């Protein structure tokens, strides 16, 4: 049993009867156990997984299996799972059990996927290193002294280490793409509104999107296909109909057969260090496959980080007000008054980064500062989106680095929040514009993975994924795996 196999291979194995879903699940559960030091999981749902696997085996026997039947997966611990703790990596929700499933969870469960457990994450999705979890840091499987990225660090590391074939994540400013790049796996953040946010604890409502991390574009396509679509419970969920995406899980992802115009933004390649050569090689690979490269400009790129931290901070500061110790979640001991209850529960329950973001957001929305910060940031957001829309008049896709460099060492940036924020410099702009974007492994620098980012116009997941399939047909970076237990 190859723990780094893609979903397609595993599904074929299950159908041929090479192994059962129960055996498959046992295999991954054992690997999770053996690699506990990576700290990729917050909860492992062994009993529930075996029950679900047994059910899946029956479905397989009846010949009624779909592309995900009996396939193990992990959910980032930000998705509500009925009956299983959902902690968001926080003390505030340490023992909280949701009374409902997130729409994403329900979709994938009804597609027959088997839940192995909930993966570790930066607290409330705020972070780029998974060092901000109440449940401890996650280690990068390529080099345990380095971070896996964040906030979906647990999901990315678990896939990279072969502990689960696929894992869900969320991406607000890069939280799927950046850890995917640091861990040498593939990850996609879909168009804003493509996937329902219902049941996904909110960080920044106008930026958050659920997505997938896996070994290759084909796997991303299958899972995305089964988890996207209009959800009446989410007012921001899009009613855009995409028959290609709906059917790709069954029909399979094909490499793109036309040569697209690919733009490289000058602003993104300016100060690129070690990754530059690899990114340029990846671009040339696509060129030799029939794509046309050109240089484009996204002039307002510098505005992205400040605008993002104001907008996401403002939205987060209010989204997290519900964690007040009154009717669910952590409450401090012996509160002496209502004020004491609020202040101590929240101060004891939240970690430092979360508090910083809440205070930043509160500042940005407060009387006297609203125009200068929140409104200003939204205007810059418009300009950033306009940059992209103008670029997509000339090109079909944009190719860019995912991160400024390779995974940094644990502890390197924890003392400097602004330096940490700079990690997301290439991923934030697409988030602000609501555009779909993915990261693919495109090489190694000193033994550490480097990711290439592809960004498309709204609802262009087909171009993104088919181009990725083309790239992964001609290269094998996605088939490199770290040495793990």
């Amino acid at each position, binding site marked *: 049993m190859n723990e780094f196999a893609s979903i397609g291979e595993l599904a074929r194995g299950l159908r041929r009867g090479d192994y059962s879903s129960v055996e498959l699940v046992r295999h991954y559960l054992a690997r999770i156990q053996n690699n506990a030091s990576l700290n990729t999981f917050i909860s492992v749902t062994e009993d529930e997984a075996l029950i679900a696997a047994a059910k899946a085996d029956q479905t397989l026997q009846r010949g009624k299996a779909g592309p995900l039947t009996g396939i193990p997966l992990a959910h980032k611990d930000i998705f509500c799972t009925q009956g299983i703790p959902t902690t968001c990596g926080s003390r505030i929700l340490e023992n909280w059990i949701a*009374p409902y499933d997130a729409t994403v969870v329900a979709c994938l469960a009804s597609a027959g996927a088997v839940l192995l457990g909930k993966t570790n994450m930066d607290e409330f999705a705020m972070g780029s290193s998974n060092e901000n979890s109440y449940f401890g840091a996650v280690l990068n499987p390529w080099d345990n002294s380095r971070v896996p990225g964040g906030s979906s660090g647990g999901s990315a590391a678990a896939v990279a280490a072969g502990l689960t074939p696929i894992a869900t994540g969320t991406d607000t400013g890069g939280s799927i793409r950046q850890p995917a790049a640091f861990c040498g796996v593939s990850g996609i953040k879909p168009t804003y509104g493509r996937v329902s946010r219902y049941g996904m604890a909110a960080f920044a409502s106008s930026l958050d999107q659920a997505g997938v991390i896996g070994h290759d574009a084909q796997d991303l396509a299958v899972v995305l296909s089964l988890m996207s679509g209009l959800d009446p419970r989410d*007012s921001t969920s899009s009613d855009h109909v995409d028959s290609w995406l709906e059917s790709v899980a069954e029909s399979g992802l094909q490499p793109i057969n036309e040569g697209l115009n690919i733009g490289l933004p000058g602003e993104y390649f300016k100060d690129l260090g070690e990754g530059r050569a690899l990114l340029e090689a990846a671009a040339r690979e696509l060129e030799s496959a029939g794509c046309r490269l050109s240089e484009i400009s996204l002039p307002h790129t510098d505005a992205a980080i400040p605008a993002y931290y104001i907008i996401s901070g403002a939205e987060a500061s209010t989204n997290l*007000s519900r964690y007040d110790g009154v009717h669910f979640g952590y409450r401090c001991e012996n509160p002496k008054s209502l004020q004491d209850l609020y202040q101590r529960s929240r101060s004891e329950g939240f970690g430092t980064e979360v508090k910083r973001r809440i205070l930043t957001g509160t500042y940005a929305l407060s009387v006297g500062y609203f125009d200068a910060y929140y409104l200003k940031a939204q205007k810059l957001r418009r300009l950033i989106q306009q940059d992209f829309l103008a670029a997509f008049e000339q090109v079909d896709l944009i190719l860019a680095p995912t991160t400024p460099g390779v995974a940094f060492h644990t502890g390197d940036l924890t003392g400097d929040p602004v330096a940490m924020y700079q990690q997301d410099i290439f991923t934030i702009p697409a988030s602000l514009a609501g555009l779909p974007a993915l990261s693919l492994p495109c090489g190694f620098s000193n033994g550490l993975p480097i990711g290439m980012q592809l960004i498309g116009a709204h609802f262009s997941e087909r171009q993104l994924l088919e181009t990725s399939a083309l790239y992964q047909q001609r290269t094998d970076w996605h088939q490199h795996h770290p040495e793990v237990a």
Partner: protein
Amino acid sequence: MQWEAVIGLEVHVQLSTTSKIFSGASPAFGGAPNTQACPVDLGLPGVLPVLNAEAVRMAVMFGLAIGAEIHPYSVFDRKNYFYPDLPKGYQISQFAHPIVGPGTIDVQMENGETITVGITRAHLEEDAGKSLHTSYPGMTGIDLNRTGTPLLEVVTDPDLRSPGQAVAYFKQLHALVRYLKICDGNLAEGSMRCDANVSVRPLGAAELGERSEIKNINSFRFVEKAITFEIERQIDILESGGKVQRDTRLYDSDLNETRSMRTKELSDDYRYFPDPDLLPVRLTPEFIAEVKSSLPELPKARKTRFTTELKLSDYDAAWLTSDPEVADYFEAVLATTDDAKLAANWIMGDASAALHRDDLEWIDCPVPATELGRLIARIKDNTLSSKLAKTVFEALWAREGTVDEIIEARGLRQLSDSDALGGIIEKIILDNPRQVAQYRAGKNKVLGFFVGQVMKATQGKANPGRVNELLLELLKG
């Protein structure tokens, strides 16, 4: 020094939708604690709001009824503050872009005068839960059933100048929302709650004085009393050289005073910003036109119809249209009689008094409107004397049967026949020669004696008009 009070009211109207404004839970009153608070109402992680179409429709109806501009683009904002009955730590409301713009409401005062009250705006928002302070020692119990109930907040311009005007406006608004069937108007259940902004300034001054806000007054009487107290309190302060502090107050009905709310002393920065979980509400002209065409006849138009077509007095028309149930009852009475004036009199007089006596609402009136109409018809066609009509009315009230059944059963048919009456009168004249002589000598008052005798002889069933006519004729010497 003469003082002028300046009052503005903000009334929270609970819309009578079937489900809540942002969730599919029921907003019905009176459920066991927290049995109507679903995950969206509780603000659990990951839940999201979705807007109720009927709440939007009801807001648009209200806006059209007050002649306001309906804003085709409106936005929901988060109003941020911490309170245990506010589970998300923010209330979804509308701040910069409300759904309804400026309009007016005409208010008829008791003295007949009409004032026009400017409505600044009306917007949609969600209600909060309830706190129970007295049942648990040292603790407060929170019931979140009411969280998410749709509210329409109606804000007046500071146009009101007396407690009387404020109450009259509140009553008019109450009638209007019941008229439109967008609110049940049950004040005891909190269906409408009023915040009053009160300030005082020297008469003739242009600038407004510092104001205080009295929150959550939920009865007509208390609105009047709270504002009266507050005006006096502020005048006392100003006359003794002090300054009125802007603050938020509660009305204590036991002590009849307003008190500053301790928890609101720190001025709250609500940090309003557009709720990113909701998209802007865009209403098409077609939608607004469709709502307009579905509006019931508005009180103003109905009143005009009553005065111009039915020839009722201004006062009567206003009385009858002040409550949709009364107006409906009145018009139903006109199905069986065309005497609008008489119908108005009976409704405003006997029927109203009986309802009041038995503590009933119009909707529970035991006399069907058609029967009241028939009663009037029987008076007009001389079957019944006015006096006996009252007896029949009481019998109707007691549900003894229809008007005609009662007349038959009790033999109350009025005697109008000249021959029969003539015979009776001639006998009375013969039996009372002394009174006849007095009358013929010029003592006109004695006529009353004869009328009384005729009534006695006919058990009150004689048609008084006829009796008078015949007496005058037959007593002529």
